């Protein structure tokens, strides 16, 4: 999948915010990941390099620095459970276990049916409503282990 005309038009507008085009790279990578299969493929890297007038390795070096970018394919729904201190103190490991059970995926891996990708993540900034997890970008807070199956079960 190459950059679509719609994405290119979006990036043209995005880059007007900055005096130098390259500043649009990280927001653009977010949009690529959202629109082009849920990950940053080698093709996306080449296409972004061309668009931003960079070498592919420069785009790769940026994409690989940031935890929100996936450099290999992941399951259809991304489940991220916070493992940092405030969540850990209030039972994050039980949330992770429940998520593991429901999805059948190990942490850092996708389920066999490709429906879920499960990961443990560092602090998401929802410490006063711990424990928490993020599913496809949406925060779920003040969790009990039983909530996990319900929330993941409601995904179509």
């Amino acid at each position, binding site marked *: 999948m190459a950059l679509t005309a719609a994405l290119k038009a979006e990036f043209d507008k995005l880059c007007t*915010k*900055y*005096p*130098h085009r*390259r*500043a*649009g*790279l*990280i*927001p653009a*990578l*977010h949009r690529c990941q959202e629109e082009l299969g849920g990950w940053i493929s080698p093709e996306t890297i080449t296409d972004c390099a061309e668009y*931003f007038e960079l070498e592919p390795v420069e785009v790769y*070096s*940026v994409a690989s*620095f*940031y*935890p*929100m*970018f996936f450099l290999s394919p992941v399951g259809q729904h991304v489940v991220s459970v916070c*493992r*940092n*201190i*405030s969540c*850990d*103190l*209030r039972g994050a490991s039980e949330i992770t276990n429940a998520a593991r059970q429901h999805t059948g995926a190990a942490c850092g891996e996708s389920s066999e049916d490709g429906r879920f990708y499960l990961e443990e*993540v*560092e*602090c*998401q*900034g*929802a*410490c*006063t*409503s*711990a424990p928490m997890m*993020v599913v496809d*970008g*949406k*925060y779920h807070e003040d969790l009990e282990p039983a909530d996990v199956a319900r929330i993941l079960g409601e995904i179509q």
Partner: protein
Amino acid sequence: MAHETYLLDRSKLANSHTLEVARADGAYAALRKVFESSMSPESVVEEVKKSGLRGRGGAGFPTGLKWSFMPNHESDSRTRYMALNADESEPGTCKDRILMREDPHCLIEGCLIAAFAMRLDAVYIYVRGEYRLPYDRMQSALDEAREAGIVGDNILGSGYSCEIHMHKGAGAYICGEETGLMESLEGKRGHPRPKPPFPAGFGLWGQPTTVNNVESIFNVPFILARGADWFRTMGTETSPGNFLCGISGHVERPGVYEVPLGMSARAIVEDLAGGVWKGRSLKAWFPGGSSTGVLPADMLDTSMDHDSVKAAGSMFGTGAMIILDETASVVRSALILARFYEHESCGQCSQCREGTEWQEQIINRLLSGRGKSGDVELLVDLSNGMFPGKTICALSDAAAIPVLAAIKHFRGEFEACISSPEEVLA
């Protein structure tokens, strides 16, 4: 005990994030006052200096003083920027998220007053990538404000123009460090830059730049509307004003509470947060996020302000208190934080890159019952070798300090991992 509040008052109104509700509640009145009273940019900086406002992002540096570091506009004609640091990611800290989500217009107003004071050309609001709703709320508020002539050209008919742009990060703690943030905003890896040069001289794209925290800027409209003297009626002499105390961990009512600086940690834990949960007693507490050294229960009468927490041997940080009850393992907390800093180290400096990894390995060894005699001393030696001033930025310090504090106050718990490994594993 009731105290005066201002930071979260508007956020209690329905639809507080909309221009209509915010304006009816007085949003942009301070900005209008600045323009209509013909205040000079320099006098705005003076007022903020006089208020004694200290940065709420962790370092507690005086905001007005930071603004005054921007070069003179007559002798330096370069483009001038502010990068607003909304990359909130210090474990325990979740206050900026609420401000952006519930009261984005107050933050925009603060940015515009700061921009006028420093004669800026543009402001970039760098929001951590995970904060989707706060980002969207800020973007909508910005669109509304631009439509209403509050952002962009000729703001409120004043003749002053300034753009504000939203920018999305992608989940790296180090981008909360001001020079890492600027690198990231330029579309690069978030590698902190050596200082000097400081951002005011060489910031975004090499231009004069100031980096401020969300909560710091959020205080500005109140200071300009009500005056520096009013601001100083709250808090302490050296730390005036209120702050947002996020309290998490083992308390009955975790939450983000607005309290005056200088309130005792005990009052926050017991009166506001309902005390330690499940009727248990307190073992330890972090005063201001994960990078501030843990303190024992008998220091809970410490006042929550910069000087008092420093005198207690820790740091005020972001004012985000993390509470550990009597059943919690301080060694496990140390492991979780060591793992975090190891994950977040950008890798430029060997003390930090290697040090954080070794810290994690040693603590992990202790907790898995494989601790060796001398491991605690090794951990202390290693951590002491990671700071101060040995690396480009303070992430290495932030990793070393909590480990050293945990060993200082709870050495017995670390030693027990070696002397009675079977109990640790149980």
